[in-house]
């Protein structure tokens, strides 16, 4: 369980969007300057792209560290005993929460009196992977993620959560990665986008032989480069399953497999917000916490509070341990 949580946080930290999420902790004007530098680069044809920076502010938020997915996972673990609509309902109307489109829309729906499953269905991003990330907690605890998923998601968004929870649950019980991936696939009908993509991604990654070798094949097989947001469960969950599968079968030691899978996921720039996190959860769960690289274990324990301010300084390892 601790491996799944810390593995997810390490993957979350490894993707390039983490620094942008964490820059939410800096003053608003520093992000405005960032946007202006982006416009400057565009206007002046400067290829040196701006990165989040801290002018006259603490630099700690911009160091490698966990961001949105680790915080929402922690929140899920801390509230897992509660009715899901009630737990989310307490967040509705708060002005200081940052979340995916699906969660923002669901909180608005709850505030307007819509209950699940309508809160997750009447939702422009019902298909995203917010519930799949939270499902790591449900899978690790051996619980069904469906009620939680239906608050914020529908269809592929819910299927992605069920598949993720099944894989994590199997790994927590000690099953090998191949069995865990099969358990996840069993939740994904082939005539859905997520089920089709999962089978395509697994075949592409197996043919490539290793996670890093699979990066171009996964880009071609799963990503369409048409839509503006890279958190569709039909893309990120299949990529995580495929890279975890390829890593486990091509790498000798679990720690090596963890690094290879997460690194490869972080190379897929459009889905680097959450695919590395989901990949990290699967491979971290398989490896176990103590087998993960020490530098990463230390770096991702303490949450930043960039999405849920009350979690600033919280110890993710401690939260995972309490769930166990």
């Amino acid at each position, binding site marked *: 369980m601790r491996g799944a949580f810390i593995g997810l946080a390490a993957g979350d930290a490894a993707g390039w969007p983490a620094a942008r999420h964490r820059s939410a902790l800096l003053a608003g004007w520093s992000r405005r300057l960032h946007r202006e530098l982006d416009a400057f680069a565009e206007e002046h044809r400067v290829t040196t792209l701006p990165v989040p920076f801290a002018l006259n502010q603490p630099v700690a938020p911009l160091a490698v560290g966990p961001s949105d997915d680790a915080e929402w996972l922690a929140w899920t673990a801390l509230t897992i005993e509660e009715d899901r609509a009630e737990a989310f309902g307490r967040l509705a109307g708060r002005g200081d929460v940052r979340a995916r*489109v699906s969660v923002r829309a669901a909180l608005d729906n709850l505030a307007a009196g819509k209950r699940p499953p309508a809160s997750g269905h*009447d939702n422009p991003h019902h298909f995203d992977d917010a519930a799949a990330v939270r499902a790591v907690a449900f899978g690790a605890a051996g619980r069904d993620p469906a009620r939680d998923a239906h608050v914020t998601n529908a269809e592929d968004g819910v299927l992605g959560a069920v598949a993720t929870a099944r894989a994590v649950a199997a790994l927590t019980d000690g099953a090998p990665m191949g069995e865990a991936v099969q358990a996840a696939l069993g939740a994904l009908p082939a005539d859905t986008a997520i089920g089709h*993509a999962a089978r395509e991604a697994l075949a592409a990654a197996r043919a490539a032989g290793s996670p890093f070798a699979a990066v171009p094949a996964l880009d071609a097989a799963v990503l*369409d480069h048409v839509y503006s947001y890279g958190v569709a469960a039909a893309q990120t969950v299949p990529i995580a399953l495929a890279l975890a599968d390829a890593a486990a079968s091509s790498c000798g030691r679990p720690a090596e497999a963890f690094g290879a899978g997460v690194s490869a996921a972080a190379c897929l720039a459009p889905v680097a917000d959450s695919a590395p996190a989901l990949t990290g959860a699967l491979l971290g769960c398989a490896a176990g916490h103590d087998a993960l690289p020490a530098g990463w274990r230390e770096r991702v324990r303490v949450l930043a509070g960039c999405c849920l301010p009350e979690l600033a300084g919280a110890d993710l390892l401690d939260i995972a341990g309490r769930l166990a």
Partner: protein
Amino acid sequence: MISVRDRARGCLLGLAAGDALGAPAENLTPEEIAARWGVLTEIERGGTDDTEYTIFAATLLLRHGHALTSEDVARAWREEIVARLDGPMRGAGFSELGAVEALRRGLEPPLTGRWHAHGWSDGLAMRAAPYGIFAAGDPDEAARLVEIDGRVSHTGEGILGGRAVAAAVAVAMTGAPPEEVAGAALRAVPEDSWTARDLRAALDVAARTPRAHLARALHGSFARALHDTVVVAHYPWTDLAPEAVALAFAAYAAGGGEVEASVVTAANLGRDADTTAAIAGALAGAGRGERAVPARWARRIGPVAGRCLPVVAGRDVRDVADEIADEIVKGL
């Protein structure tokens, strides 16, 4: 007595006029529109994807009639849209682009409509009117036909948006009043759907709005109330089918089914204004016929340029309407 041909022309001219009128207001808020135009009532430029995809759908319908299959539609997309592309698509929405990508990968419907993330878009609702004309008086058949088309590019609420519009046009083609037309839309979708919930809520707002305030087919508090009711607050794209269909029907109901009032009301609500005004225009035009479409608008509607779909370049919505009407007469 308004003839079938007159209603068919009214429907597609109303659609084309709404498309053209709403185009410059797309993605603007009602407040931004008011600041720029006061009330946007005059067509400034040509139509967009709404009119061209509508003509494309009508072409398939004329070719296959009641025997239309999703495989026919997929083949037509492959041969007449995908094969003619010599670069990126132009003037298309996410759902059309996603469907083309899926077809290029060799997928077949319904997976082509599910494979991309935008299956809930209003891209089917925008091209649904010909099915309602063709199945005039038979909303179930109109909804069945548009769903067959929609499986190529849409899924879920995107299909429901198309069903609602096609069924409603089929009833509007009988000259039924707006309440009956809106009722047909609601009956064409499951009660427990986003489309039904948004439609009911938007029609409630329209029913509470006194017509006297709609002297110029628009009232600021009406637009704000509708936005607060059905517009998704924290999402930037405006082409959600449940929202667009709800805005279009509210404008049509508030406009009393009159063409100019319905279209102007829809266009001035903003969001996906070309599509919502096109839908409102199709409903009102089918109900009131060609002569109810303002002459100053009709004069601006000529053969389409084929900017979005080169295969339909040169086609005039009047000819398309006449051909569908001829098919109906032949079938009687």
